């Protein structure tokens, strides 16, 4: 790999380290200063624009940098990817051939099945556990600390989380001391150690648990904020009417936080569709664990099949599209009614 060549090239002496790395940090500092200087110049130009047409000049100076970047870096690339998804590697139009390849190829079908499993289970687990936890700790002593504990995984990278869980799943052959907690528990319970990550089809579940572990904190924080918005008077009234805790939750809390629930579920669904790091780090897509986002990367950048990669990116876009549209519509309705 290229990094090994790089490794050999780096100086072993510590001064070398600091001149090299100091140079990089200096580069970043210069880049930031230069960027801010350019922006300052833009402001200066806007400030001193000729009176005639000043508004137009100012508008352009404010808005053009961002718009040009978005056009060159998102709009054009997205259109280009769509075009690439219906062409062959040589650039000839092939209609839906690439999509047919994805949907008929056995690997492709496993990828789609796994993606479906992720999309069904990650939002469900995260939202249910996050909501339950938010309810359980609401107004409890030490609520803040209890929240931090479950929320903390949100700050950890997907790569870090994958290693944390990879360690939980570590497998040693029977008879050897187990160093992964889950296999140790299996052994303590009298079972034999199990290869969590390597054994299909259940390994997909053990991978998606990592994403659910991360997203639960997000669900919990948003839903907790929503629960605190439920007026105490309504809860009181329901209680006076003799409603049980479960009934109060079902008929008072749940309808009240419906908007937030939709946001949580849709947001987690979208992140789940796009997440690539977990599969990449834990298995690299081996053992039948690949999902669309990971397969897109593998095909486009590892296997030299950019046209299949482009088609997978379009599949991802099509999967995400209706969820976002639904999300926006619910938000609109919510804004109008509240």
């Amino acid at each position, binding site marked *: 790999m290229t990094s090994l060549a790089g490794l050999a090239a780096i100086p072993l002496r510590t001064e070398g380290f600091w001149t090299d790395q100091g140079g990089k940090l200096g580069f970043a500092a210069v*880049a930031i200063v230069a960027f801010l200087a350019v922006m300052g110049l833009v402001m200066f130009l806007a400030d001193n624009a000729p009176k005639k047409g000043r508004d137009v000049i100012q508008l352009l100076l404010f808005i053009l940098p961002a718009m040009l970047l978005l056009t060159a870096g998102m709009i054009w690339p997205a259109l280009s990817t769509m075009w690439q998804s219906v062409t062959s590697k040589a650039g000839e139009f092939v209609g839906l051939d690439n999509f047919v390849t994805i949907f008929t190829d056995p690997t492709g079908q496993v990828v789609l099945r796994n993606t479906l499993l992720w999309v069904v289970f990650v939002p469900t687990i995260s939202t249910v556990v996050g909501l339950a936890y938010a309810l359980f700790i609401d*107004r409890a002593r030490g609520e803040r600390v209890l929240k931090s504990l479950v929320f903390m995984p949100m700050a950890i990278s997907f*790569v870090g989380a994958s*290693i944390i869980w990879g360690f939980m799943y570590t497998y040693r052959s029977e008879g050897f001391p187990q160093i992964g907690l889950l296999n140790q528990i299996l052994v303590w319970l009298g079972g034999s150690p199990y290869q969590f990550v390597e054994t299909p089809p259940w390994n997909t579940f053990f991978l998606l648990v990592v994403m659910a572990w991360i997203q639960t*904190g997000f669900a919990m924080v948003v839903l907790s904020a929503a629960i605190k918005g439920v007026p105490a008077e309504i809860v009181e009234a329901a209680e006076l009417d003799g409603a049980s805790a479960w009934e109060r939750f079902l008929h008072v809390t749940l309808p009240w936080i419906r908007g937030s629930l939709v946001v949580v579920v849709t947001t987690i669904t979208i992140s789940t569709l796009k997440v690539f790091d977990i599969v990449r780090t834990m298995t690299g897509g081996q053992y039948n664990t690949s999902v669309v986002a990971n397969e897109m990367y593998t095909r486009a950048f590892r296997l030299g099949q950019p046209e299949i990669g482009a088609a997978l990116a379009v599949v991802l876009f099509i999967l995400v599209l209706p969820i976002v549209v639904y999300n926006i519509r619910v938000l609109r309705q919510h804004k109008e009614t509240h």
Partner: protein
Amino acid sequence: MSAAIAPEPVVDAPDGASSGGKAKRVKKRLTSRTATFFAIVIATLWTIPTFGLFVSSFRPDTDIANSGWWTIITNPSFTLDNYTAVFSESGASSASLGVYFINSIVITLPATVFPITLALMAAYAFAWIPFKGSSWIFVLVFALQIVPLQMALIPLLKIFNYPWLDIGGTFPAVWIAHTIFALPLEIFLLHNFISEIPRDVMEAAKVDGANHAQIFRRVVIPLSVPAIASVAIFQFLWVWNDLLVALVFSGGTIKTAPLTQRIAEFAGTRGNDWELLTAAAFVGTIVPLIVFFSLQRYFVRGLLAGSTKG
């Protein structure tokens, strides 16, 4: 996006006592024994994996290979050797994480400053400079959040590799990519904030003869500091934790690759050397954890304000 409906989170929940009898009764109801029990179970389940990794990273390599981390209760022994090993630049187990750590900093700081500056300017223009098609273009920018960044990777890499640009595999390529991908959400969030500035304040500045550039500098930026802080923290963590953009645009060499990329690669090639992996993972996690625990309030605010990134 959830900002529209999720109110400011109550991080410091008021104690039942302070809000009178009503709250006290609510507290009593919701903290029944079963609820407390399940809360503790969930909290424990959610914490143990990280705790196990953290403890293991300080255990001697022979201990890690031969016993579980929970045995430290009966057999405590700790060392910093694993950290020395992952930072060392030579030897069989070297990971040179120091270099990658610097790379992460070099990537993250500009990739946080650039998009916020540009987004702030664009957000101001959308909010306070009336022009034809303003709302139409704003909706378009907002809609760009739908586009998964996977859609942009291949063509953008091609652009970076054009002979007249030729920045593929350099820091500027990673900065620009992160800047572009951050713009739609940041423009949207900052616009939400800036458009809420009272019209009177803007009018007053205008009456004083200030033009847009002056209003932006003297009124908008000072008033937007809390929003800028939230967005900045969120972007910082996003870039620091990113793997995909780094893999595609950094070129993957020790010259430019960030920590995440190195650690992911390490997990692939040294997947069974847990003494190194645990320490490496913790090195990659320490900065986000510090940011998280010291700035949790802003982090939560940023998260509630917008969470459909990528």
